[in-house]
């Protein structure tokens, strides 16, 4: 086979000669003969292509499209029987526009040393690929960064127009960006260094191959491709009735938009209306607020009994007295006025618009006063989401309340029995009952117990002599046993049990069971006495108020406002 597109022989001869053999048999390198003007490097490249059987189906194409730079020298196409699309230098920015000139369903398109000069590689690759028939081939040939360029970054030492350097990984990465990975398979990705002179100095263009060759084969569209977009974590298919309420209630389809608040904090009102000790404990919080807002005008509203101390602190620009509480509740000196304190306070604060208002009382009685103040930001304790209008709520638990000890008795009428008899507040088990071993005698009361450490006293008395019964403590209606054992039923004292749970116990169950088979002694069950131990963890009042002050300072470092904007979910 003579590869010759030279000056002396007609190019058609070259085409015909090679084309004639192409559908029949793939030429072996030894069968090739060369003629100018195909350069040695191009010849090496052709040999490289022919040496890869993976490329055989592509090169056997009855029709090849070669896309290259117009300035390619020599002008011969790499392979015969090739339709050449030249891209001029001034067309590179819109190089992808050359492909619409091509008909659809091409069998093989060869991008020969052009990709590295095209700014928009993504659309260029995609543009070529869309012109392929299913099963068609896209062959991309680019200079190798470490064979041709031999530089770490642009510009190229040889060609000013080279915008990017390529390694096989880089070429594949660009391809993956440009093409849906479900629409092609990689048939070949290889470095061509045949005859490359590895000793050539950097400022020369070394002899030999210095390319990367990538061959993709286009696949038919996958029927599952669209479904792949629906990621499984995004939705759930249902076969049963939908168990959930819709995400939009009452047609309120809104956006919540949180944006920076431009306003500064110039005026600040602090409420500390409770008693002398409370006021003393609030001093660190006052100091924090003053430090956080050094230029703001701070007004303190406090009980009249604290007014002088407040002024002596020299932290406030103004101190206003307002007696919401009595100075001494134990003396019964509550205010004799029948007027609503909130209305009184609203009148007092009518001209007191401010940027920030804070109520430092832990409990919520005074929060209503905060509500009537005109302020952009309102801060206070709100452990139970009682005051949704607070813009800076601190849901800190109050140890005295959330950690308080609880005690009581669960009377026998809350328990169930089969063999005993409910009588007033007791369950009576008469003498002579025959029981199986482990038979349940008492069970219930299926109430929820909060987390904590519990002490129980089983209120059970023997009718005659002392004896023993089995018991267990369970959660979830008896499905989860928390504890079990034996108690002695004695006339002199009630049996005691303990239980600790870090989580709430739902459907708490206590059971009494016969320890052995046979006639059971008579006894009386009156209920279960319980006590949850108090918890002494948490923060001190002084610390809690300081935390609120710090929270306010931190929040208003980057203040924001929240707005609801109505909008259709579809846009």
């Amino acid at each position: 086979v003579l590869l010759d597109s030279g000056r002396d022989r007609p190019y058609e001869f070259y085409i015909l000669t090679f084309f004639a053999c192409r559908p029949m048999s793939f030429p072996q390198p030894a069968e090739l003969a060369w003629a100018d003007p195909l350069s040695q490097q191009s010849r090496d490249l052709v040999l490289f292509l022919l040496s890869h059987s993976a490329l055989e189906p592509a090169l056997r194409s009855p029709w090849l499209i070669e896309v290259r730079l117009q300035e390619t020298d020599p002008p011969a196409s790499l392979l015969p029987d090739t339709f050449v699309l030249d891209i001029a230098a001034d067309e590179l920015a819109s190089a992808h526009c050359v492909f619409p000139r091509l008909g659809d369903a091409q069998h093989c398109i060869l991008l020969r040393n052009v990709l590295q000069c095209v700014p928009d590689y993504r659309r260029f690759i995609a543009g070529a690929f869309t012109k392929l028939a299913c099963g068609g081939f896209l062959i991309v040939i680019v200079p190798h960064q470490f064979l041709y360029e031999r530089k770490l970054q642009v510009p190229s030492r040889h060609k000013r127009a080279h915008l990017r350097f390529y390694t096989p990984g880089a070429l594949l990465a660009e391809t993956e960006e440009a093409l849906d990975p479900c629409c092609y398979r990689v048939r070949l990705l290889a470095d061509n260094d045949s005859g490359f002179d590895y000793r050539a100095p950097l400022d020369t263009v070394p002899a030999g191959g210095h390319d990367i060759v990538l061959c993709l084969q286009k696949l038919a569209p996958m029927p599952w491709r669209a479904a792949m977009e629906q990621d499984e974590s995004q939705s759930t298919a249902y076969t049963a009735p939908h168990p959930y309420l819709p995400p939009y209630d009452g047609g309120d389809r809104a956006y919540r938009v949180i944006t920076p608040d431009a306003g500064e904090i110039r005026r600040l009102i602090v409420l500390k209306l409770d008693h002398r000790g409370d006021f003393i404990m609030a001093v660190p919080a006052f100091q924090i607020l003053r430090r956080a807002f050094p230029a703001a005008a701070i007004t303190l509203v406090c009980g009249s009994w604290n007014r002088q101390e407040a002024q002596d602190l020299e932290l406030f620009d103004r101190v206003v007295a307002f007696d919401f509480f009595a100075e001494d509740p134990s003396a019964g000196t509550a205010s004799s006025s029948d007027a609503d304190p909130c209305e009184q306070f609203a009148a007092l604060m009518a001209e007191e618009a401010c940027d920030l208002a804070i109520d430092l009382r832990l409990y919520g009685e005074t929060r209503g006063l905060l509500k009537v103040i005109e302020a952009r930001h309102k801060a206070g304790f709100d452990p139970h989401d009682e005051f949704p209008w607070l813009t800076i709520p601190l849901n800190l638990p109050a140890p005295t309340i959330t950690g308080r000890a609880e005690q009581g008795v669960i009377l026998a009428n809350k328990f169930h029995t089969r063999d005993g008899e409910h009588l007033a507040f007791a369950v009576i088990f008469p003498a002579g009952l025959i029981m199986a071993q482990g038979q349940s005698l008492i069970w219930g009361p299926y109430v929820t117990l909060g987390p904590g450490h519990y002490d129980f006293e089983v209120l059970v008395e023997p009718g005659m002599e002392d004896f023993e019964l089995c018991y267990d403590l369970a959660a979830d209606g008896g499905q989860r046993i928390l504890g079990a054992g034996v108690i002695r039923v004695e006339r002199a004292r009630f049996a005691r049990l303990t239980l600790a749970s870090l989580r709430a116990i739902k459907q708490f169950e206590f059971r009494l069971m016969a320890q052995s088979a046979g006639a059971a002694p008579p006894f009386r069950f009156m209920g279960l006495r319980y006590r949850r131990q108090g918890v002494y963890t948490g923060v001190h009042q002084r610390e809690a108020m300081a935390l609120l002050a710090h929270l306010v300072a931190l929040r208003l470092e980057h203040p924001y406002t929240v707005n609801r904007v109505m909008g259709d979910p579809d846009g």
Partner: protein
Amino acid sequence: MDDGGMSWQGVVPPVVISPFANERVREWPIAHYRRFIERVLCEHRVPVAIVGTRAQRVRADELVRGFSYPEVVNTAGRLSWRQLVRLIDAAPYVVANNSGIAHLAAVRGCWTLCLFSGSHSWVEWMPRGPRVVVITRVTSCAPCALGGGRCPHRTACMTDLAPDAAFELFDERRASCHRDGAAREFVTPPAGGASLAAGSAEALPGAGLPPPSTAFPPGEVTMSRHSPAFERRFTIRAAELSRPEAYRPRGEDAPPSGAVIEFDARHQQETDEEVLFYGPYISLDPGIYLFTPEGELDGKLQIRFTHQGGELIKELAIDSFGPLVLAVTRKLDAFEVVGMRTPELRSLRLQSIAVHHIDPSRN
């Protein structure tokens, strides 16, 4: 600056979009991000950089596919954390889900749009900073703390968060904050951003990766409500320009950092190569450019501004180094400054070219 093998030089810093999160339920759909990017390209006329990890690159490919390069660049898996921070510092704004990138952008004072899913309470987890806009859908099922589980409502809090609405709400809020003075100081990069300056490049995370041609410049970007024009200054160093083989010492790869381009007619009479230097193949956005060569010039030097491999924009001859004005009316890719010798050129010593870009149409 280097960004994962990219020498960003000479283009407007890109908007950074971080479309991923640790949990899929927190992610805005890719289709929504695509629409958002279309609006950014069309209306803000700034490039976009997609950021993510190497593992997220395949999904980032899905996002960038179909968009032009370099209008939309996929940097997923190619940036070190430090490079990412620089990218964010320079960005006009950052768009992200409830993710680490949103928090990073927020604390660095960058304008940040956070598309916040209903999986978490926004009160507790939203990014906080001086220029943060958070948008959530008001849904009665939020917060659900769903984590990696399946949402029975096809993640309505995110799929129903429409991209056009998000774009417009963000734009409007950002503009109103400028008017109201919330963004009291709008100068990027903030503290530390000066590390974008030329010469601060660190080792590339993957030297084998191809450096794209376009890049945004080292330098300072200033946008202020007090000055509505967009301004940017950067420097093209001599090291970023190429020299024909005839004018470079044999074996020299490229001028080392800090090098100068020198020509002396007395010693280089034997060559007839006219081109003395060329480069740096950057993209230019529309606007007014002042190019001020720095160095010494004795005689007449021919300067050609070209793009796209040689298309001439402007040509002029100079006999001293002063500001050269170039009005760019449309985006130019592969922009090149070519210095050519003339018979009257006696000597040249070029250290750098200072560039001042003003775009009065943007604020």
